[in-house]
């Protein structure tokens, strides 16, 4: 770990467990760190590549979760990229299956990976023409009501409000 | 050739059709009971056929698509009509003539050929796969079957089924299965392939290539195929009964014998899983073929 710290510009380290930790790194160095981890540190297996939308911070967080089968330890590499210009370097040359993850991220979050094979092909949504649905400013309820002919008469409650009313009817 | 023969032939077809349908239902019922299920009603095949004829719309893919089920049914009816159903009966002796054994062998093959044309026109890939499998399997089990039939023809010095049946009368010691066991074994193994039950059901292959050749057939066209599926196995059973088990002199005997013969592919089918087409072709061309050749040599 210290080795990585000296070699790379790590901004944050969280050691969750003995064999699971997360490190954060600026966008420019992410792929070279992942390459280094794979080739030198024995993190040969990519478990997943996923994204989270931090709407309030105007950022996407990408997580490359790597696994070291020899030491039985996991390492998550976190990268924050801006929501405005959501592009990231592709990593499909390291693991072939990354291309599929990147296709999914492109479709669901609108994060572009230039150079990744078939990244513009529809992944599971066929002919989607709205905002990418996993972005948090996409109102899925509104979209569903506008598009899918909701059957009238459906009631729904906010669970917190409902339980409060039911258990403590006197409190305001 | 008299006109009343046509009436007799229609009567034969009618009885054998009903027998085939009931046999189908009963065998499925027995299968269900073995699996501890209540099973279908024994008359379910009738309802299915009525329902298919009662469908209102039919789509077509061209002329051959219409003709294929008719070809298939012709194969079944032809097989039935050119052999004596009941030995010694004027009514159910049908159009048996001096060379009917050869013609009957041909009718075994006739249906699947017609089906090949129709299925090809339907354009469904599974139909094409099913037909190519069917043709290769039919070709391969035809060899031991023909060898067995030739051995029997040499044994009795005739190509007439009526005479073959006549020669087997007078007790079960005269049946071909006793007097010519090698030919009988070769033919009975080929019979497994002819019935198209597991392990030789790659042609229809449920769950694999949905149902093979008839994938695109619907409504009335499927109804015709279902009629054939009742008549054809029954006719084959009667053929094997005539050649190997001494024929039948009345309907009760026919029903008993054919039912017992039918249990042979049913039992084998329950025990063995499906062969792939290359396996079944290879298998038919080894053991049964050798037995068939031995039968020819020993005659």
């Amino acid at each position: 770990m210290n080795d990585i710290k000296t070699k790379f510009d790590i901004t944050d380290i969280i050691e969750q467990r003995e064999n699971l930790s997360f490190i954060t790194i600026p966008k420019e160095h992410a792929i070279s760190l992942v390459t280094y981890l794979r080739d030198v540190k024995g993190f040969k297996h990519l478990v997943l590549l996923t994204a989270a939308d931090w709407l309030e911070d105007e950022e996407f967080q990408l997580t490359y979760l790597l696994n070291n089968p020899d030491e039985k330890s996991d390492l998550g590499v976190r990268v924050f990229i801006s929501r405005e210009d959501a592009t990231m370097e592709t990593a499909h040359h390291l693991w072939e299956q990354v291309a599929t993850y990147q296709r999914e991220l492109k479709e669901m979050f609108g994060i572009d990976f230039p150079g990744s094979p078939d990244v513009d092909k529809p992944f599971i949504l066929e002919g989607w023409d709205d905002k990418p649905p996993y972005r948090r400013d996409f109102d899925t309820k509104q979209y569903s009501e506008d598009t899918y002919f909701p059957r009238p008469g459906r009631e729904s409650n906010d669970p917190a409000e409902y339980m409060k009313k039911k258990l403590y009817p006197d409190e305001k | 050739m008299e006109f009343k023969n046509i009436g007799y032939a229609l009567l034969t077809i009618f009885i054998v059709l009903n027998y085939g349908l009931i046999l189908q239902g009963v065998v499925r019922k027995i299968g269900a009971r073995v699996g501890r299920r209540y099973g279908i009603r024994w008359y379910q095949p009738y309802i299915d056929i009525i329902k298919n004829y009662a469908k209102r719309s039919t789509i077509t893919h061209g002329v051959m698509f219409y003709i294929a089920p008719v070809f298939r049914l012709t194969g079944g009816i032809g097989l039935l009509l050119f052999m004596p159903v009941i030995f010694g009966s004027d009514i159910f002796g049908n159009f048996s003539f001096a060379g009917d054994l050869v013609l009957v062998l041909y009718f075994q093959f006739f249906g699947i050929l017609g089906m090949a044309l129709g299925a090809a026109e339907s354009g469904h890939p599974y139909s094409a796969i099913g037909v190519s499998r069917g043709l290769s399997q039919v070709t391969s089990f035809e060899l031991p079957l023909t060898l067995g039939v030739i051995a029997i023809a040499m044994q009795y010095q005739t190509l007439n089924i009526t005479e073959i049946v006549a020669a087997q009368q007078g007790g079960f010691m005269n049946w071909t299965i006793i007097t010519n066991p090698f030919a009988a074994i070769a033919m009975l193994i080929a019979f497994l392939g002819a019935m198209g039950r597991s392990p030789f059901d790659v042609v229809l292959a449920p769950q694999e290539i949905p149902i093979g050749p008839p994938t695109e057939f619907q409504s009335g066209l499927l109804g015709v195929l279902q009629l054939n599926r009742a008549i054809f196995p029954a006719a084959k059973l009667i053929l094997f009964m005539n050649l190997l088990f001494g024929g039948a002199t009345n309907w009760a005997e026919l029903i008993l014998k054919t039912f017992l013969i039918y249990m042979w592919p049913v039992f084998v089918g329950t025990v063995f899983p499906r062969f792939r087409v290359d396996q079944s072709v290879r298998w038919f061309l080894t053991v049964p073929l050798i037995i068939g050749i031995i039968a020819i040599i020993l005659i």
Partner: protein
Amino acid sequence: MKEDFKKRTVISPEGKPIEIDPLKDYFSDAKPKVYKPAHPIIEKFANWARANSLWVLGFGTGCGAIEMRPLMTPRFDAYRYGIQWRPTPRQASVFVVSGYLSVKTLKRVVRTYEQMQNPKFVIALGSCTINGGMYWDSYNTINRLDHYMPVDVYIAGCMPRPESLLAGFDKLKTIITEGRGEGANTYAEKFDWYKANQKKVIKDWDMPDYNW
């Protein structure tokens, strides 16, 4: 629209250029027809046969497909009611839409439904087909099935047990014997409305309007 379905010019084996319009050439664009029921007596007999020989299309669309399998087992044994499974839409008469439908699946379901022969019946299984169920506010699953194809029987529940599925089949039998199972004709009569609804949801419409 996919590349395969676009109009294009190809060179024939003889060296002549020929125009191909796959949607026109490979499919028929005839609309569905309304078939008038036959004479009442014949129709009654036919309906009896239809009700007692329900051939279910083996197409599991959602999680409800798992509830259809037990019906074949000795415990529930649907065969005794004349219910059988067919692998191809051409021969099936009952379409069990089992559970939620994503837009992508809906497209396949519409194609499959249209390939079935008249008369055909639809059983919608699970709450998802009624009002969206637990996926009611999803961006990708439809809310009510009856806007896209006529539905004969709804079976509510999430998921309904095989017993309720059997009860649904029983209900469908009653509907057919009473001669009310005219879903295919309804589809033909209100074809434009159904098609407009389908096209509103399915964004990349790359098939002919009616594919039988």
